[in-house]
């Protein structure tokens, strides 16, 4: 999809995490029409005539799962003519910096004639308007290009979680289906029944259901709320709960000598450096593999459940603190083996430093040595956590990326529903194919493009075609 400069576009134009104000920017010929449906009272939009201006008003906010419309106070900056950053009618809405609110406003703007801006699109327009010189514009676009790919993959991983796979699978399914439909259209003289009307309906219905599942998942999953998730992991009795209490500065978790004292997980919020952190104390699970010194947990229903919850907590974690009881007699081979298997977003914490002198171990294997009991090493740990979170901060899913995912899935879903309707009333397979293509195009915005050759490849590899 190539940016069309005549579209009216919308994007969040402020820092997202924990900012006091959030700014939404709109630019394009239909800015005023779009804005009239967002602000209250609508007259504000045209009040200043052709002159740029600013005023105080309200913005409508509606949430998917809520029947009521809320009005949020907003400062509205208007450039009704071409005398703006992009030299197009433009506006900015300065709102409270709440992510759900910004998200909802973006959604409403998209229903009111705007579309989500592609990465760098405002910059491109500003450049075309002569607001930036070429070097600036290029640098910005270059950075955005690199970020965009990472953003989308992160978004798919985090937002869709377990369903991002089914999204790719769904794309494959739809391509196969399209190939069958196209084959029936293009190769009418073959003695092959490519697809029957019944099959078509059945496969469309299944695809619709899958997409519905993805869509549900996307909306239910909460967006990044400015709070970073840090999960404590490690073998039972490694000292996670003690560390949890120590970091928190109060006894929130029950601590005992017995393995498996913590059965589900506890969470608490705290500030570490400049970051708001949700600390999660998971139930200890078996370490990634055979480490010799650890008795595996007895297999039971409760244990299975515990370890699944731990896995789920870890799946969305920004940082995993892997706790090891430094007083245990770890062998070098075991440790080498073990540390190799830790995920990339892990930080090694050697607990119970007060029980033994283990500075050589830290020197050799890295990580932070702490004693929850005496408080040694905690400051260092906090610093390390903050530094690691700083590194991952730009990987966080922005509402705009999330909205793009939802947008694409929504578009794909309506196309498939239309395809199903057309198939039901037997309107013609060429029309069904058109909708399938629209659905694939929409998914392609997330997972990659469709090429005609892709479809033809499928046809020729599966059917014996040609005279």
């Amino acid at each position, binding site marked *: 999809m190539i940016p069309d400069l005549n579209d009216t576009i919308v994007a969040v134009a402020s820092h997202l995490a924990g900012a006091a104000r959030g700014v939404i920017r709109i630019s394009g010929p239909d800015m005023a029409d779009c804005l009239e449906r967002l602000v209250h009272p609508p007259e504000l939009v045209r009040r200043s005539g052709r002159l740029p201006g600013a005023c105080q008003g309200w913005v409508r906010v509606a949430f998917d799962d809520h029947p009521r419309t809320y009005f949020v106070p907003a400062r509205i900056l208007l450039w009704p003519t071409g005398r703006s950053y992009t030299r197009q009618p433009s506006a900015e809405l300065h709102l409270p910096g709440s992510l759900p609110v910004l998200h909802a406003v973006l959604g409403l703007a998209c229903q009111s004639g705007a579309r989500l801006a592609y990465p760098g699109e405002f910059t491109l327009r500003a450049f075309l308007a002569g607001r930036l010189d070429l070097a600036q514009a290029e640098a910005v676009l*270059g950075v955005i290009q690199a970020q965009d790919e990472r953003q989308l993959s992160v978004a798919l991983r985090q937002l869709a979680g377990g369903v991002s796979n089914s999204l790719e699978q769904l794309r494959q399914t739809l391509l196969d289906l399209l190939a069958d439909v196209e084959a029936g259209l*293009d190769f009418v003289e073959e003695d092959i029944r490519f697809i029957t009307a019944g099959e078509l309906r059945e496969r469309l219905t299944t695809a619709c259901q899958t997409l519905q599942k993805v869509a549900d998942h996307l909306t239910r999953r909460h967006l990044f709320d400015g709070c970073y998730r840090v999960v404590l992991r490690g073998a039972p009795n490694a000292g996670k709960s003690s560390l949890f209490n120590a970091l928190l500065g109060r006894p929130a978790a029950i601590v005992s000598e017995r393995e498996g004292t913590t059965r589900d997980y506890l969470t608490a919020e705290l500030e570490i450096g400049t970051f708001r952190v949700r600390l999660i104390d998971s139930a200890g699970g078996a370490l990634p593999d055979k480490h010799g010194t650890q008795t595996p947990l007895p297999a039971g229903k409760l244990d299975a459940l515990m370890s699944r919850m731990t896995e789920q907590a870890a799946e969305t974690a920004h940082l995993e603190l892997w706790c090891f009881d430094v007083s245990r007699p770890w062998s070098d081979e075991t440790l080498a083996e073990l540390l190799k298997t830790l995920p990339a977003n892990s930080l090694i914490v050697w607990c119970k430093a007060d029980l033994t002198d283990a500075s050589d171990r830290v020197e050799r294997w890295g990580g932070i040595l702490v004693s929850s009991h005496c408080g040694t090493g905690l400051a260092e740990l906090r610093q390390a956590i903050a530094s690691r979170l700083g590194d991952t901060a730009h990987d966080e899913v922005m509402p705009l990326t999330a909205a793009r995912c939802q947008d694409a899935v929504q578009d794909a879903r309506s196309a498939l529903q239309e395809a199903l309707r057309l198939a039901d009333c037997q309107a013609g397979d060429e029309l069904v194919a058109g909708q399938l293509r629209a659905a694939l195009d929409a998914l392609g915005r997330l997972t990659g493009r469709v090429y005609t050759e892709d479809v033809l490849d499928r046809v020729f590899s599966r059917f014996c*075609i040609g005279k």
Partner: protein
Amino acid sequence: MARTVYDFDIVVVGAGHAGTEAALAAARMGARVALLTTNLDTVGQMSCNPAIGGVAKGQIVREIDALGGAMARAIDATGIQFRMLNCRKGPAMHSPRAQADKKAYQQEIKRIIETSPGVALRQETVEDLLIERTGSRLRATGVIVRGDAWYRARAVILTTGTFLQAIMHTGETKTPGGRAGEGTTAGISQALARLGFVLARFKTGTPPRVNGRTIDYSRTTEQPGDDDPQPFSFMNDRLHVEQLPCWITYTNEGVHEIIRQNLHRAPMYSGQIRSRGPRYCPSIEDKVVRFADKTRHQIFLEPEGRRTAEVYVNGISTSLPRDVQDAIIRLIPGLERAQIMRYGYAVEYDFCPPDQLWPSLETKLVEGLFFAGQINGTTGYEEAAAQGLMAGINAALRLKGAEPLVLRRDQAYIGVLIDDLVTCGVDEPYRMFTSRAEYRLLLRHDNADRRLTPIGERIGVVEPERAVRLREKLEAIQHARQILQRVVYEGSSLEQWLRRPEIGWNDLVARCPQLAQFPPEVAQQVEYDVKYAGYIARDQAQIERQLRLAQRHIPADFDYHSLPHLRCEAREKLSRIRPLTIAQASRISGITPADIALLIAHLEGRTTRRHQDDPAQPTSAASAGGEVSTDP
């Protein structure tokens, strides 16, 4: 010995489907054209199957006709069986196809050329190109033919088909030649390589032909033509021909077993042929190997003409040795006693990867040199003819100093064809499918005249009678449409009635007898216009978007190395293909929206002056610099 020199405006090399349309189109536009062929008896020859049209191809024939081409008129005059394929699907899928009387078709094409005043048809063997070099610029100025004669011209169109360095294979036997019984051309290949063109090789194949007298038709299934055959040409209202049937039979496990036992003797499998062939035209050995679980493959027995008993065995294209072909034939129901008249063979030939062409089909390397047809890596008579037509038109426009005619993807299959070729290149012989067209609902066979004849009239490539005929049709369509909007029946206008799926034109006539005055082709257009309106409106928005991008031109000599932030892959592809518009650039595979944004930024940067300070800019919290980090 004195050299003979002839002067023409345009020289067309090759008189197959591409060359003949090229010569005729240029002549219609007023150019003096020399059409050179190595053999005057093979003008417009159908080297392969005796049929014109089919799904997507039939639409192309109609488009060629809408621009005044000869193919549709020739098949209307010489067809022996006409069928409208895909009739049970929507109008966009309806596709005309006809069996041709091969010899009659060829003679009809030759007759059309002979009666065209602007074309000099001559038997000549072209051995080299005349090229003028000015600095680093190359310009085609004619050709040298065998016998020390020069044809000088301001544009040269090469339509050499499969004849460049051609080798035919039947089993272990290799024969130089581009078609059974004919030779090959080496001089042109060498000339092209010398000029710096990249050449590559493709393969294609053809089945054996048998004597129809020796076929037992009782063991096959008859496939008749349509009861009410539809003409290809918009200039013909009706067809008056007696139709002949085709026949269907099948291969069987016995046939497949013989093929499997002899695979080591098949050039495609022994390694004797390495070049790539079309996947949609697989040889029978390919079908048996790749789809081993299929117990039979369909075969069409297609008569080659009214005055010959020769029958084309469509479906068993092969390069297996003669004895194996004989054995196969004997096991096919109906062909047990059939005598092979010509054995099947595969042919390998040179082509020029078409990303070396501008969308006008002029080469990027040599000004005034155009390529059309199989030399561009395509397959099919219709695809070749379409390119010939466009090359002829563009060569003629070039002589007039006018802008080339580049049909858009939403205007014609011809536009899709050429855009695909020059933008994406080919990795197997290119054939048209309707699935290649994004705007399939618009590109129907029935409206090709409405889409293209006005364009043809503007550039002067269509005959006046055709333009008049279309104008009358358009007026009638408009008139009928007005009636539909005006006449109200039970509270709804007739147009609203027609939008309902269950209502057809005849239902309207029953309610409004006035409509009976309109001929079927007018009624059909009105009905499709109304019924497809919703879907077409959706396409239209997309088309307009593309159009805006197509209006952003890229200079042919744009230096992509001057864009430091462009990705290497994008730089390499854009430099090679040198797209002429942003729209074309965006269709190159692997080019991302961000690449395009950069490109737009640069192109605008060359023309737009910077406006640095604007007093009307109010202060804003999200300043320009903030966007790097916030607009993800």
